[in-house]
């Protein structure tokens, strides 16, 4: 009986945003906005916090059999420490973005006609998608989560209806559809081989035979396309840079992270029997290439939002470095695991802050060319400060969440004798420093005048997210015990 309330919390985490998305068209843009900011936001934060507290208190994952039906017949959800950490991050970023969008609107082009209603309907739909990805425990629910994310994200990318963003949305759609159909093909092969869809049952049954390996490859490629991992990142910069600031923040902070989260679940949770050092090394090599290519491309961008989008490509690369490091440190090595998760969380907070700040800077100056950022330091000092603080976390300067994450990855690389990954971490940090220096040196102390006034409240939202991302690094490491609950390989 004790598990019942915690279990219903996990279901609520998905159903609250679904309810909001369903009601939004009836309420209209204004009403939906109010319902989301005043209702969904505090409720979701409370639910995520309660799930985290329950996971911490019991030291075990919360299992949920939806409708009381146990797998293999029923559908299982579940929340372990990893789910709880991501649910909390999602609630903070989504909530901050909703407050931001409520205060600023969506910009001149996207602020009229049906666009606001589409935004306030699809934002909770995306929220439902990411939360479902974080708690889904079977292959088919994951497919639903992936589709919710696709259908929520693509109309948001082309909210302003310009030719540029329509083309970006179409390209994104092609990659996303390829990703889901590959995932679905993998599901067919696994169900044909084992007759189950449940991730836990599958873990116990899985054998390294041809069908399983083919399924694993298909599903991994599908998720890599959705997570925009090099070389499948080609859709990301135009889509993330072209969308309104509030949309870019959610897409870059959470939507691509959901695919990463599922990749972690798939490999460490369900298919560890197939995870060889060579394969882990291949994934990390893709990550390393993403860090270098994304960093160099970010250095060369003339427009601020494109620079920030390429920075996302690079920062996603760090997440893949986790694979060989977690594998090599074995069951007792918690450092690399925490490093990967902390990188995902601190990047989510920092990148949301950065996109919101970049949007405000562009709104104040009427221009988002990096070379023309001169008046930003005087016109919107808080936004520039938010951008700079978020940048510290992305670079990995202490004390910040990004520093702790990269330090843990670096330490794990050296301890396990894989020093080449340490070189990548350091090199990526230097590239990040380079493109941030370009922005900040242009934004501080330049000539020129701002063309529009920007209110204080949205600037404070961006700054708040940046401070959180930095603040993660000031917490002592033992306070992240939550992330380790239910870690694969850990004794229950």
């Amino acid at each position, binding site marked *: 009986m004790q598990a019942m309330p915690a279990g219903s919390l996990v279901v609520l985490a998905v159903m609250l945003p679904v309810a909001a998305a369903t009601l939004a068209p009836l309420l209209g843009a204004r009403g939906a906005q109010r319902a989301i900011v005043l209702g969904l936001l505090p409720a979701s934060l409370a639910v995520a916090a309660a799930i985290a507290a329950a996971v911490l208190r019991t030291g075990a994952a919360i299992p949920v059999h939806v409708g009381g039906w146990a797998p293999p017949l029923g559908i299982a959800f579940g929340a372990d420490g990893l789910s709880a950490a991501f649910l909390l991050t999602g609630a903070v970023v989504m909530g901050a973005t909703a407050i931001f969008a409520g205060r600023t609107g969506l910009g001149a*082009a996207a602020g009229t006609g049906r666009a606001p209603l589409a935004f306030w309907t699809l934002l909770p739909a995306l929220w439902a998608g990411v939360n479902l990805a974080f708690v889904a425990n079977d292959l*088919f629910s994951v*497919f*639903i989560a992936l*589709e919710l994310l*696709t*259908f929520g994200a*693509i*109309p948001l990318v*082309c909210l*302003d*209806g*310009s*030719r540029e963003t*329509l*083309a970006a*949305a*179409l390209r994104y*759609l*092609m990659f996303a*559809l*390829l990703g*889901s*159909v590959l995932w*679905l*093909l993998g*599901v*067919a*092969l696994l*169900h*044909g081989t084992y*007759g189950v*869809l449940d991730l836990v049952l599958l873990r116990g049954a899985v054998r390294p035979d041809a069908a399983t390996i083919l399924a694993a490859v298909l599903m991994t490629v599908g998720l890599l396309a959705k997570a925009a991992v090099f070389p499948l990142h080609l859709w990301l910069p135009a889509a993330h840079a072209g969308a309104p600031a509030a949309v870019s923040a959610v897409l870059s902070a959470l939507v691509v992270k959901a695919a990463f989260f599922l990749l972690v679940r798939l490999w460490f949770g369900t298919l560890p029997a197939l995870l060889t050092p060579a394969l882990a090394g291949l994934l990390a090599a893709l990550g390393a290439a993403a860090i270098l290519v994304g960093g160099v491309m970010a250095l060369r961008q003339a427009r601020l939002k494109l620079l920030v989008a390429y920075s996302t490509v690079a920062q996603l690369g760090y997440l893949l470095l986790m694979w060989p490091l977690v594998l090599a440190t074995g069951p007792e090595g918690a450092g690399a695991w925490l490093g990967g998760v902390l990188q995902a969380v601190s990047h989510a907070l920092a990148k949301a802050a950065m996109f919101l700040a970049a949007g405000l800077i562009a709104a104040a100056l009427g221009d988002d060319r990096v070379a023309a950022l001169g008046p930003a330091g005087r016109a919107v000092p808080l936004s520039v400060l938010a951008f700079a603080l978020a940048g510290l976390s992305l670079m990995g300067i202490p004390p910040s969440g990004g520093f702790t994450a990269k330090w843990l990855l670096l330490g794990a690389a050296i301890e396990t004798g894989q020093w080449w990954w340490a070189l990548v971490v350091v090199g990526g940090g230097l590239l990040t420093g380079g493109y941030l220096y370009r922005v900040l040196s242009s934004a501080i102390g330049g000539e020129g005048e701002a063309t529009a006034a920007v209110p204080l409240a949205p600037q404070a939202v961006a700054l708040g997210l940046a401070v959180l991302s930095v603040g993660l690094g000031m917490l002592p490491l033992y306070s992240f015990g939550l992330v380790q609950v239910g870690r694969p390989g850990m004794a229950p």
Partner: protein
Amino acid sequence: MTAPYALLAAALVGLGLHGVLAHAEPLRRLLAFNLLGSGVFLVFGVVARRGAAAGLEADPVPQAIVITGLVVAFAATTLAVALLLRLHGGDPPQD
């Protein structure tokens, strides 16, 4: 008995994948994606038939997945066509 269908499914998946990856025109890629999707649904059909048990003609779980998959593929196709029409069709984008 399911072997011809399995081979046909593999052929559809192969053709579809080739079409999606090798062609640049969005409409051809969209059609190829639908071909690929049909191949995947046929794989589920084969899986369902081979999983027949408890007196049923076929395992109902893969069939349920196919129904969901069809709906999703249809919705995705309409979304892609809507984007294509806005980009290239009579209704001009709001530049």
